[in-house]
């Protein structure tokens, strides 16, 4: 079972809240276009539905004939015409058989329609995800995007599968049955319709009233879920402070709140069906008495009365259902709209028409007058110019939020520049394919990421077909081998993104191992060692130093002590490079860097 997902989704789908599309018409049309890709199937389904409904509706008339035949011979004290009765029974069976067959045809064909549609849309979302710029992921919550793939498309499929069929047969049944009822006896039909309408009014007014109760219920639920999430996440702390009783008390209170709200909300929803049923029953009794009188008068045959009541049943059920179906249909359109919104998001810049590659790649990197900012956000980089020779070690330092990470993201072309250009060995990176660019660059990121699989698989992520020895060698080089072996299953330990039996520092060691194994031309270490303690860091540094030999590398680090030997130090502040040079040069400048450096050590001896 997957629990984390439920938590992610909890915040975005509460199921009960009113869910309406912003532009239902346009979305419905677009959804219909997808559906119409399977138009022949839909046509067959439509024909089968109409036929199935009509055969079902014809049956009561045959039963009426049966009863009338029987009644006629009983009242006239003659022998029953069993040949006629047998024939009618055969017809009846045949009608039911036909109806069942067409029902089968309809459902069999429909069985793949909705799932094919979701599969298509999931595929399109999947393609889209690869083309979305990284800023999209930065600005949207994980759970929301996941819910587009899962909940939203699941709802679309469900509603199309069941709702569409039900809606089609409801429309056909209601129309045909009303005609037949009118033909049997207009007065009875009017009473029947009046009863059904009354039921609809009652249902609608209850639905209206229950909105407020639902909202309260949702609020209470959200509050309780929030508390539980918080208390479980901080469970160790609660223990340390002996606050278990207090937590239990708080949850109890929220739980009582929810009890009250949910009791009232549930009562409203559940009361609708019996209320409508009661109304229907009352109408039924009235019609029974009136039709009995009509039979006595000779205005109606008993067989037709029986048929009429069957039609009443056949109409009232889809009528109550239709309200529900229309609601779910509306929700499905809203879901589809959210999916389309993702599909309509602006994409990454397309690849250059004829992408270039570098002959004899060396690894010289140039930023030329680079400017960058998020759309509708402030500038994050202004007029940055850097020249890095092949094989140099570049350190980027500066306060948090100064734009250190942005520099790297631009080099990786995760974001597009507003102006200026970045080159590797004099080739503009926008002239290369992204794939080729990423082959040149290897990185260890600030937010380490591990995927569901073994530790071994995770280390081998950057290169295909690696031997076990190579994996272990990379882990050893990254000082990860020891802790991996303390785990129950060693290199075979299964990880996932939420894994808790591995510390942040250990995760970083794994992603360092991953980069070591990938063996890129240019190396990027994005605050990778900040959670690894200094001693481990030093060991990793040694491994890295070997790795960085003759390799251009960019290092972003908190601890200035680790970057003293860099060939070039870039001091970033407020989106611009305020100083650049070697450690000695910068100290001699007595500028921003010197101040930063001294503040780190001034107090150590104090």
């Amino acid at each position, binding site marked *: 079972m997957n629990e984390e997902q439920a938590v992610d989704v909890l915040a975005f789908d509460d199921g009960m809240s009113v869910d309406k599309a912003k532009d239902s018409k346009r979305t419905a049309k677009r959804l219909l276009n997808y559906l119409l890709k399977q138009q022949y199937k839909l046509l067959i389904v439509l024909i089968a539905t109409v036929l199935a409904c009509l055969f079902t509706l014809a049956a009561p008339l045959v039963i009426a004939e049966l009863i009338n035949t029987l009644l006629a011979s009983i009242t006239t004290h003659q022998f029953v015409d069993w040949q006629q009765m047998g024939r009618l029974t055969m017809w009846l069976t045949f009608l039911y058989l036909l109806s069942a067959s067409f029902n089968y045809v309809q459902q069999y064909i429909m069985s793949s329609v909705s799932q094919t549609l979701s599969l298509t849309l999931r595929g399109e979302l999947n393609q889209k995800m690869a083309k979305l710029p990284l800023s999209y992921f930065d600005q949207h919550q994980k759970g929301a995007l996941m819910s587009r793939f899962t909940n939203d498309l699941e709802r679309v499929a469900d509603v199309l599968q069941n709702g569409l069929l039900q809606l089609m047969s409801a429309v056909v049944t209601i129309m045909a049955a009303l005609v037949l009822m009118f033909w049997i006896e207009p007065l009875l039909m009017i009473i029947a319709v009046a009863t059904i309408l009354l039921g609809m009014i009652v249902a609608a007014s209850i639905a209206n009233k229950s909105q407020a109760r639902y909202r309260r219920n949702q609020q209470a639920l959200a509050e309780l879920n929030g508390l539980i999430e918080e208390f479980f996440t901080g469970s160790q702390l609660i223990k340390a402070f002996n606050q278990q009783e207090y937590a239990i008390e708080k949850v109890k209170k929220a739980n009582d709140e929810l009890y009250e709200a949910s009791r009232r909300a549930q009562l409203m929803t559940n009361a609708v069906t019996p209320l409508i049923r009661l109304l229907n029953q009352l109408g039924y009794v009235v019609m029974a008495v009136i039709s009995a009188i009509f039979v006595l008068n000779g205005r109606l045959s008993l067989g037709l009365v029986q048929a009429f009541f069957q039609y009443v049943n056949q109409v009232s059920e889809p009528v109550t259902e239709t309200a529900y179906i229309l609601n779910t249909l509306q929700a499905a359109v809203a879901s589809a709209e959210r999916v389309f919104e993702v599909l309509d998001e602006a994409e990454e810049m397309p690849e250059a028409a004829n992408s270039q590659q570098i002959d004899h790649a060396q690894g010289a990197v140039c930023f030329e007058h680079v400017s960058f900012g998020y759309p509708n956000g402030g500038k994050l980089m202004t007029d940055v110019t850097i020249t890095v020779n092949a094989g140099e070690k570049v350190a980027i330092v500066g306060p948090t939020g100064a734009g250190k990470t942005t520099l790297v993201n631009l080099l990786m072309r995760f974001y597009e520049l507003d102006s200026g250009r970045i080159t590797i060995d004099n080739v503009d990176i926008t002239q290369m394919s992204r794939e080729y660019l*990423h082959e040149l660059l290897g990185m260890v990121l600030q937010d380490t990421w591990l995927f569901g699989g073994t530790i071994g698989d995770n280390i081998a992520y950057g290169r295909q077909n690696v031997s076990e020895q190579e994996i272990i060698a990379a882990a050893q080089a990254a000082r990860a081998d*020891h802790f991996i072996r303390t785990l129950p299953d060693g290199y075979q330990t299964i990880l996932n993104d939420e894994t808790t039996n591995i510390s942040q520092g250990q995760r970083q060691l794994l992603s360092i191992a991953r980069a070591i194994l990938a063996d890129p031309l240019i190396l990027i270490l994005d605050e990778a060692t900040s959670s690894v303690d200094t001693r481990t860091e030093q060991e990793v540094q040694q491994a890295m130093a070997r790795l960085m030999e003759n390799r251009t590398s960019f290092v972003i680090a908190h601890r200035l002590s680790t970057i003293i030997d860099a060939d070039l130090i870039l001091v970033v502040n407020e989106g611009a490079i305020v100083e650049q040079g070697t450690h000695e040069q910068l100290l001699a400048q007595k500028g921003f860097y010197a101040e930063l450096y001294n503040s780190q050590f001034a107090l150590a001896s104090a």
Partner: protein
Amino acid sequence: MLRLLKLVKPSFKTALAIIILVFLQTIGTLYIPTLMAEIVNNGILQKDMAHIVTVGRRMLLVATLTGIVALMAIYLNSRFAADLDRRIRNSLFQKAQTLSVTDFNQIGAASMITRTTSDVTQVQQATIMLLSMFLPVPVMIIGGLLLAFHKDTYMALIIGSTILLFAFLAVFMGRKVMPLFIRLQEYMDLINQRLRENITGVRVIRAFNRVRYEQARLTSAFSQYAQTAIKVNKMFAVMMPLVMFVMDSCIVAIIYFGSRRVAGGFMAIGDIMALTEYAMLILFYLIMGVMAFIMLPRAQACAKRIMEVMDMDSLNDQFTCQRPLMSQTNAKISFQHVTFRYQQAEEAVLTDISFELYAGQTLAIIGGTGSGKSTIANLLLRFYEAESGQIFFDGMDIRCMEASKLREKIAYVPQKAFLFSGSIADNLRYGQKEADLAQMKRAAEIAQAADFIEALPNGYDTLVAQGGDNFSGGQKQRLAIARALVKPADIYVFDDSFSALDYKTDAKLRRALQQFLKDAALLIVAQRINTIIDADKIIVLHEGKIVGLGTHQELLQNCDVYRQIAASQLRKGELA
């Protein structure tokens, strides 16, 4: 699921009342067609107008009463449902508070959250469905068949055999569909897992050029899901028309053979209509019952996950104290040959750890990632139990103390600063409910948090969002430190609590701390030499073992590992 229900003991009286009401409702529902037959047989056929009106009135009464009974059942049902929900959730949450940290982490916070939220709802819904949809089925079958027998034995047999046929079909189909449902859920879980990875790992995936590989992984999960879903739909495509046809055939049989019985004078023509109605009602209720049944395995799985928690030991606070073991030392804390390993781990996290900490002293622990630093703090707080060796607090083996008594004397700052939603003051008072503003201000000043708190428009009343997300990492850490300082304690444990602070703040904070906590014992887990340079005693941990114990100067002289750490952090001049 039954075990869970037994455990939480929902109101038996309410359940009984619901059962009785549902029973009455079912009887009423069956009585209407019986009266209808009466109108046809003795009213229409006998041309007795008065009788029609009399029976009509009785029908009206029965219909109204049935409706009222149904509404009462709904009322009780809603109450019962909400109450059940509350009971399960309360006892689950209470249970969770008594679990040991090992057990809790084995399940994980995320999973505990789902179990306490959506799993509980699933179980509750299934129980209600059982009560309102499953329970009436036997009543309907027995009542309907009795009425049918009363009309005509042969007719009752037709209805009875249809029920059997239907039950057979339901079981047969259920066996085929159930495994598919389970598989469907598994594929959905797979989709979710891969999606989450794809979204959180988007940078790495792109950087390592694995976009196409990840797409293929997703595509395969999608199409496996779709194929299974189509299979399920196809089964329903067979099942639903088949069920309908069984029902229809039953009606055909009732009408044809009923006519023969009517012609033979064994029953009246109105009885055919009543019998058809009985058959329809019984089969309709059966279908509803089957649908409720389909929901069961899912709820069962949820109940199992809840029970897994409920079945865990609550003995967290009473580990294994044979007799109050005293040590001869007057140290505040004393570790004697403590060894610890996580369950099933090959290598121990801590091996043979011994040290003592006296009141008024500062003990620092430094070492590499995974060297076991935090584990020492966790053992002291009795989050885990040592595999061998002993830990003494004031000379008493901590296994012989109530965990809450032990923790009362310890103020703890966790590695990951976690704040609760509420106001800043609420958070600061977390360890001491009665703390006044002056105490909080004092703690905040020492923790170097007073400046930024007082700069906030609402000061100490500023609201903290869930998880403390409206504060930066450094601010959260300082608030967590202040929270611990508000609490009066014998020992203050700082588990790598200064890492998000810049060096200047770190130094100021430590100086203030030493002033404030003169008489207490301090245990500081740290990564920076600067943080611990003044400690009375420093323990150097390496791969779970103590490789150095002494002051900064001593360790520089005689501990290799310490020298390496120092060399990586300090300027050459300071190493001397």
